[in-house]
């Protein structure tokens, strides 16, 4: 009998060609997808050249997404994007998306069926952990790891121990996956899951749609986690069917699998939550944060730029206008989401409310472009980080929260709940 294993251990064991693995063990795994973007790929491409490999191990399993500084912000970023484009074309990379097809990588890859349940994925972007929502092992690495992965189709890992987050009960109105993950990060801290896999289970998680699940796994890294994961179920199946480009494998944790710690969370006790500057763990309740005025609201990113996020924001903004002092920027994460939002009439709602609708880009989330803050300015964003200078000047501030609260905040001019607007 192999030892009981968590879903994470099972996926890693299968990709290491072993019957079982245990936390702390150093293993080499075969990879299903290696990802890099216009910030991290140029270094990866330089390092790849140094390996002497010449060509990538499999041109159908490398994904290159120019999404951070694109459409090109300036000459320097145009040069970076060109390095990625030229490499993609020279190597015959099938998963390269040009501006016009491109989207924010962690929304794009699941949507296009490039990543699927049971996969092992490395990405030279810390939010690669997003794909755990599909029941995959996905983790962020640096450019050099991505280069080695592109050359060999393998990567080394220390098998992480796991933390289990068992969430049960019904979420209150206006409480989303974003509030849940902010609540958890606030509880355990920005290194509360350092080197560990965060496994989310319980009837609350089972009741959530894929978009909320992506949001939750996306922010595992903000607790220091190596990965976040939610086991495959019927919701996952409905999402991947007709989408996944490869056959998938379903794994689940054994009932007697070993966890470093089990956190039991009562979903009904969670309220709309906001992370104050300058750490995602610096959480407070929205109802205690109404004194914070903002200059800008950003609704988008790999955390909350999916169609359900836009529907929720539009639901709050419908028939209302944003405070004239609040620059409100809505960024659908992919072209498909953009088109869907347009067809559903969401853009009419956003534009009538006085919000700008952007083409897909990571843009303002990392302080790249498309909504940079001046000295002392404050933004409320549905993004994932609020570090010093994250969205602009080092004296600017970022507050993190859900699309519903972001939309209400845009209307009120200060941090607010949708119910405050009535």
């Amino acid at each position, binding site marked *: 009998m192999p030892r009981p294993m968590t879903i994470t251990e099972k996926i890693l064991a299968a990709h290491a060609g072993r019957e079982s693995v245990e936390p702390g063990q*150093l293993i080499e795994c075969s990879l299903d997808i290696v990802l890099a973007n216009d*910030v*991290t790929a*140029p*270094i990866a491409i*330089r*390092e790849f050249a*140094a*390996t*002497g*490999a010449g060509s990538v191990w499999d041109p159908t399993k490398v994904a290159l997404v120019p999404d*951070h*500084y694109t459409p090109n*912000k*300036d000459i*320097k*970023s145009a040069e*970076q994007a060109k390095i990625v484009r030229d490499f993609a074309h020279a190597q015959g990379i099938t998963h390269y998306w040009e501006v016009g097809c491109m989207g924010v990588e962690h929304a794009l890859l699941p949507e296009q069926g490039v990543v699927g349940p049971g996969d092992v994925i490395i*990405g*030279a*972007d*810390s939010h*690669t952990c997003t794909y755990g929502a599909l029941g995959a092992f996905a983790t*962020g*690495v*640096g*450019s*050099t*790891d991505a*280069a*080695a992965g592109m*050359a*060999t189709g393998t990567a*080394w890992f*220390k098998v992480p121990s796991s933390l289990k987050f068992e969430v049960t009960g019904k979420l209150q109105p206006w409480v989303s996956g974003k509030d849940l993950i902010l609540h958890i990060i606030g509880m355990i801290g*920005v*290194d509360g899951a*350092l*080197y560990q896999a965060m496994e989310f289970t319980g009837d609350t998680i089972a009741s959530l749609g894929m978009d909320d699940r992506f949001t939750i796994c996306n922010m595992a*890294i903000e607790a*220091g986690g*190596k990965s976040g994961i939610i086991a495959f179920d019927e919701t996952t199946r409905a999402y991947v069917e007709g989408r996944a480009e490869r056959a998938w494998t379903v794994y689940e944790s054994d009932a007697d699998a070993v966890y470093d710690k089990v956190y039991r969370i009562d979903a009904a006790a969670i309220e709309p939550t906001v992370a104050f500057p300058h*750490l995602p763990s610096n959480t407070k309740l929205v109802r205690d944060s109404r004194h914070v005025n903002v200059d800008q609201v950003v609704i988008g990113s790999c955390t909350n730029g999916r169609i359900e996020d836009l529907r929720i924001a539009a639901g709050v903004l419908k028939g209302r206008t944003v405070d004239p002092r609040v620059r409100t920027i809505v960024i659908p994460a992919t072209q498909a989401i953009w088109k869907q939002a347009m067809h559903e009439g969401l853009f009419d709602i956003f534009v009538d409310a006085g919000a700008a609708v952007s083409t897909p880009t990571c843009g303002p989330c*990392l*302080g*790249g472009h498309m909504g940079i803050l001046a000295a002392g300015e404050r933004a409320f964003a549905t993004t994932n*980080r609020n*570090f*010093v*200078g*994250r969205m602009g000047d*080092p004296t600017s501030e970022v507050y993190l929260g859900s699309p519903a609260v972001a939309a209400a905040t845009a209307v009120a001019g200060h941090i607010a709940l949708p119910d405050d607007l009535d």
Partner: protein
Amino acid sequence: MRFEGTAHRYGRDVDTDVIIPARYLNTSDPAELAKHCMEDIDAGFVAKVKPGDIIVADENFGCGSSREHAPIAIKASGVTVVIASSFARIFYRNAINTGLPIMESPEAARAIRDGDTVAVDADTGTITDITTGEVFTAQPFPPFIKGIIEGGGLIAAVRERVAK
């Protein structure tokens, strides 16, 4: 490997955005990145850092983004080693892969003061605060990781494998 230099002291959760702000990520040139190293946590860092200096910090150094630009900027700024209570996991991998020596020692990280002269023996894991005379021992690297470091980094290992 032995290093000796002045310690630059920081707190916990030093994130990659303050190590190298994203507004400079439109280049991957080490010299260019080094000009802005630690800019948003310590605007005077670049002016005061000297070749051979050491960064000392508390828990979770390098948290946040996967940008390899962070260890590259630190190394290009002249810093020879980072000592911290703990490192965020992507930064830990990136430092090893890019050849920036790092040492995990909560005791040393707590005791060393800003401006102290510190000597580090990376082979034995011995950290000596020359200013105070205190001696600490860092957590040794697992043999597998030590192999990557001694072999000249991850790319050197891959190069060897590709050549076979």
